């Protein structure tokens, strides 16, 4: 059994090497490892589809620097060990020129030490701030962070003269991190967190926590940081208790599904979301409009499913890498790295990217749009 596997593997890799040897001279290899299966498949699935779709398109239009692009992809689930092994293969066996991948923070961080040692540019598609803070020479990322979401929300609250806020967050990874970031940056906007409640990821009733918030003196707004079905239940309970202070949600629920689950109760809720969510509602002079409309049209036509912000992150990552190779005029790794770091005014689905040696994300708060839900649809607030 075992011998058979090894032989099959040897044969397969011999074929792979032979074929890669033959075309290596005129292809640029884009390496990727994504969570296409498992609990984070909602991230990896649209990301992989996006990469395949756009690499095909670029190749059809003549490739980059006169060479064709080749995607080398491994599915790693949410397993950090698997991510490490796959990254090793990408670096040593496949000898890729650049890596665009890492759907989750866990798998990304597993790959970071390897790419740093090997010196290959790596653009991550995962959320957490730790990926780019402190700055790592070869590591970049495209999605906005939960700290930025908190800042965007507090900015909007400040504009409405809200200073006392109650926080209710899920105890899952997303809610926990969001709670920590919200508490950390609230002070910068002169906002005081006067109540701090939590709920479990599988809880089915949050009226006790909300009743406590309702009875806390001086609460002017409530912020719910969470993911999945929890925020929808919070929103329903909020309406049940007849609470009238403005309710804010995080970007974790910025999808039509949330509106569908929360129903009428979602009316009036505000949350930060990416431009992709409201592509058709953007002003005509918005620099992101052509990009997000283009991506949305292409994705929905090719896959027949609704566009997701996660696939957009992969689009941004791929395009930044491609632009950098064009600027560098070669696939020399240090030249490409420097070109990515000098990305200026790149318009992606996530926002306008201006990177620097100190900032390997390059997005500012304008990347988020403040949205309000009215009659079951998004409305742009600013």
């Amino acid at each position: 059994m075992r011998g058979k596997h090894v032989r099959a593997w040897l044969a397969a890799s011999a074929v792979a090497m032979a074929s890669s040897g033959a075309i290596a001279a005129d292809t640029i290899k884009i390496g990727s490892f994504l969570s296409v299966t498992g609990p984070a498949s909602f991230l990896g699935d649209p990301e992989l589809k996006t990469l395949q779709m756009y690499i095909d398109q670029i190749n059809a239009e003549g490739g980059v620097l006169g060479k064709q692009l080749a995607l080398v992809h491994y599915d790693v689930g949410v397993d950090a060990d698997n991510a490490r092994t796959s990254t090793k293969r990408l670096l040593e066996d496949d000898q890729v020129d650049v890596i665009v991948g890492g759907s989750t923070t866990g798998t990304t961080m597993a790959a970071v030490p390897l790419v740093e040692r090997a010196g290959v540019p790596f653009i991550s598609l995962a959320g957490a701030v730790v990926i780019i803070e402190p700055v790592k020479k070869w590591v970049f990322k495209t999605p906005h962070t939960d700290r930025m979401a908190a800042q965007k929300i507090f900015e909007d609250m400040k504009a409405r003269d809200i200073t006392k806020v109650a926080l209710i967050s899920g105890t899952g990874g997303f809610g926990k991190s969001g709670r920590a970031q919200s508490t950390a940056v609230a002070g910068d906007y002169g906002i005081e967190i006067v109540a701090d409640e939590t709920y479990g990821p599988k809880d089915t009733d949050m009226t006790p926590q909300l009743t406590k918030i309702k009875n806390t003196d001086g609460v002017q707004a409530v912020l719910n940081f969470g993911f999945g079905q929890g925020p929808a239940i919070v929103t329903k309970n909020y309406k049940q208790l007849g609470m009238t202070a403005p309710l804010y949600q995080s970007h974790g629920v910025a999808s039509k599904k949330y509106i569908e689950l929360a129903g009428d109760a979602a009316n009036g809720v505000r949350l930060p979301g990416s431009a992709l969510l409201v592509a058709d509602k953007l002003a005509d002079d918005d620099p992101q409009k052509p990009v997000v409309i283009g991506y949305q049209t292409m994705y929905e036509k090719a896959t027949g499913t609704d566009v997701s912000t996660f696939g957009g992150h992969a689009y941004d990552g791929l395009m930044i890498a491609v632009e950098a190779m064009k600027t560098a005029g070669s696939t020399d790794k240090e030249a490409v790295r420097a070109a990515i770091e000098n990305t200026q005014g790149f318009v992606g689905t996530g926002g306008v990217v201006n990177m620097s040696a100190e900032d390997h994300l390059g997005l500012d708060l304008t990347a988020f749009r403040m949205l309000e839900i009215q009659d079951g649809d998004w409305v742009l607030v600013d």
Partner: protein
Amino acid sequence: MAEFLQYLFSGITVGATYALVGLGFAMIYNASHVINFAQGEFLMIGGMMTVSMLGAGVPMPLAIVAAIVLATVVGLALEKFAVEPARNAEVVTVIIITIGASIFLRGLAQVVWGKEYHALPPFSGDTPISIGGATILPQSLWVLGVTVVVVAALAWFFNRTLMGKAILATSHNRDAAQLVGINTGLVLLISFGLSAALGAIAGIMIAPITLTSYDVGIMLGLKGFVAAVLGGLGSGVGAIVGGLILGITEAMAAGYISSEYKDAVPFVLILLILFFLPNGLFGVRGTERV
């Protein structure tokens, strides 16, 4: 006072759900001394089937009936094809079979219905009813009302019908029941069917409040099991009281102590109760006669 009432309403609603799940555990335990860990999956099938039938344009009452029928069929099939072939095995083996069945059903639901959460529209609107400064949703009244009806129906079934009495007799002494001519195999089959139907009813009633998805049965099944143990395994009244105690302590702990300890407080309470009453609140003291 208003906040106490609010916590109480929240606790009773959640507790009634746990009670309905706990009743399902009690019924199968009575007939076979098996703890059916696939009980939570019957809730899931009830909720998800109703959602998908509604999505297909079937009117609500028909969708509910279809979902209950489907869950009952799954329950019967589970007994026929998984539990019955192992009828001479140890109880523990059968319990492990039900765990396997629950994983299988969850996997199947993922493939058929997908991994997303779904909401069921409330049966009679979602305008909260205000009582003494606290509010309760009409759907919560549905949950409570249906719980009462189900409990009354079960009481009638077990005390007034031949089949119900046969099930009770089997639960007391299987061999003796067989000797007086009760078909204990049929009793077990009917118990699985009944508890599946009960689970589906619970799953449908709570779906507008808790939302539903392929894995909604894990947590609710676990809490229902705790309710059944707390009240004394096999006791119907026990499952109801156990569920309510669990739900109300959870809500009170979240409201008065801290939401961080919401899940810890009821479990400490359970440990205490089981320490002093190892058979649960209404459990029959086990006497081993040699």
